[in-house]
């Protein structure tokens, strides 16, 4: 589908980036991290974003994750234009629509697994009991039903990342957004995490994953490669 400025994306499009640019004013020089990226991702797609460092994939990831706003262009997430939302509205979008999975897990070290998973629900304003049930369900989904009261330092790397995935899923987001999710894991554990992702994808979850490893990207059904701030290739893998 060809999208033009002024259009509204069709309901099956979860992510629509239209001519997105992002420039950083570094004082002496203007860094153009994205120079017009147009991407559409449908519901239940499993997409890997690749590219060498400096290609703009982190910038794109930040924009898709609503952590940053574009210099120009449009970004539609789940039928809502978010490119010009304000701070608090972006926080709400991050809370409801996006589940982040980070390379370094980013769990609160002093809180147990359950509380870590509860965090997004706390910010959503959910009450204690419902919150607990949802968090327990999410942990069970990633196979950690018996580790709920463990603190992060009592868990293995793979288990920590699964807690992080449970936290990302707990609010039932439109997209699961993973930034180098296996970057800190050995190959066996990486395989486990990829299996979890594949599982979630099968259950209907839209997954966007940023990585620079080809064998990780190979798990995705579609690979988008960025180079110098533009989309270089966008390939659907033959199923």
């Amino acid at each position, binding site marked *: 589908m060809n999208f033009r400025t002024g259009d509204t994306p069709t309901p099956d499009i979860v992510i629509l980036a239209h001519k997105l640019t992002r420039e950083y004013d570094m004082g002496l020089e203007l860094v153009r991290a994205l120079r017009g990226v147009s991407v559409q991702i449908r519901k239940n797609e499993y997409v890997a974003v690749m590219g060498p460092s400096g290609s703009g994939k982190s910038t794109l990831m930040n924009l898709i*994750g609503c*952590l940053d706003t574009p210099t120009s262009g449009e970004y539609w997430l789940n039928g809502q234009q978010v490119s010009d939302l304000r701070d608090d509205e972006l926080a709400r979008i*991050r*809370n409801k629509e996006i589940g982040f999975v980070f390379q370094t897990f*980013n769990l609160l070290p002093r809180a147990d697994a359950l509380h870590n998973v509860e965090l*997004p629900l*706390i910010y959503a304003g959910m009450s204690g009991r419902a919150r607990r049930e949802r968090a327990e369900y999410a942990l069970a989904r990633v196979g950690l039903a018996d580790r709920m009261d463990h603190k992060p330092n009592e868990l293995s790397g793979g288990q920590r990342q699964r807690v992080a995935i449970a936290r990302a899923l707990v609010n039932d987001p439109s997209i699961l957004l993973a930034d180098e999710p296996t970057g800190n894991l050995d190959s066996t554990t990486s395989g486990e995490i990829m299996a979890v992702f594949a599982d979630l994808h099968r259950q209907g979850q839209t997954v966007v994953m940023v990585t620079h490893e080809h064998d990780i990207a190979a798990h995705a059904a579609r690979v988008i490669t960025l180079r110098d701030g533009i989309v270089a290739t966008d390939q659907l893998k033959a199923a």
Partner: protein
Amino acid sequence: MALLDAVRLAWQTLRAQKLKSGFSLIGVFIGVSFFIGAWSITNGINIYMTEKFAGTVIGVNTFHLRRRPAFTPHVSDSMWRAWARRPRIRFSDAEAVSEGLTVPVITAWQSSDNGDIEANGKTVRAAEIVGATERYFDIKNLTIAQGRPFSAQEVRSGVPVVVVGSEVAQKLYPGRDPIGKTVRLGGRPYRIVGVVAEQGKLFGFSLDRFAVAPALSPVQDLVNPPGVVDALIVKANSEMEMREAMSQAEGIMRSRRHLRPAQGNTFVLETSEGVLEFWAGIQKVLFMFGPMVVLVSLVVGGIVIMNIMFMAVAERTREIGLRKSLGARRRDILRQFLVESVTLAGLGGAAGVLFGVLLTVALKAISPLPTALSGVSVVLGLLVGGLTGVAAGIIPASRASKLDPITALRQE
């Protein structure tokens, strides 16, 4: 995020850093302890002054006719010399005023000095020796525990009898009935006819170290030149009648001394208000310096907490970024750090209140200071502690809330 969640979170964070949190409490703790302590002391003295001291020294609806005020804050030398030149209050003055008053009052003469009371080879040193008339005991609210007061007849005849304070009786005749026994005032013998019930202490001074003898007995040589009294005490039934009696007494004294309208009084009519004014002067000083000390320690405590909070924000930049990525709004982060800082200060304040209360109780038990705890000071102490937390936390918290999530997440 619900407030309860924020408080729980703050509590977890503080518990994880016990030592650091403990140190940051100290400033607020000291400030609030001092606040409670100082307040209790001032409050206690205040109650003592208004209820007991003023009542003890002068009495309700009572005034003293004197040459010069007995209780005064600082007086200049020239004023003091002017007072010293005034004529004394003579027996004849006291009689004329007592007889001239048309308002129903009771009156008594009073003269006193410090002296030793001896008996049996024992001595009570520097006791208050009083020469008075028979209504003195009524006016002063002195309860006779044993024996009887001396009579009007004994006063007029100048019989050497004496009513002593309970401490005097116990020291001179321990374990024995003092009634009918002899004590010596200025070397002369007096027969004990009564003992006054124990009154306790005021600022550590015993109120039971005294002896009262009839004004016209030989005791008058000990307390004043012949024919002179320190004070005529006049007690009326109400404040209104007291005022009326005072103006009558003033008129009588002015005419006796032939004062022209332009001349001031050469005597004073002192009421308990005078004593309270004296106290108010001291209180003003306390109320000026007390808050300053409290303020200084709270400011120091606040700065310590502010620094702790700045450190916490710097240390937890990554956590803040994470929370923002999970949907925390600015006000959620602001609230989290504010609650943390208020919890810190609140804990310090609560500990301070507790210590201040203990201090108050301890002071009352072991020192002569009449402390009295006031509920207002406890509430104010907690409030002030909490406000310090808000003041100290607002800048670090607002800095935390404005952190850019991307930069914050990237920080190691």
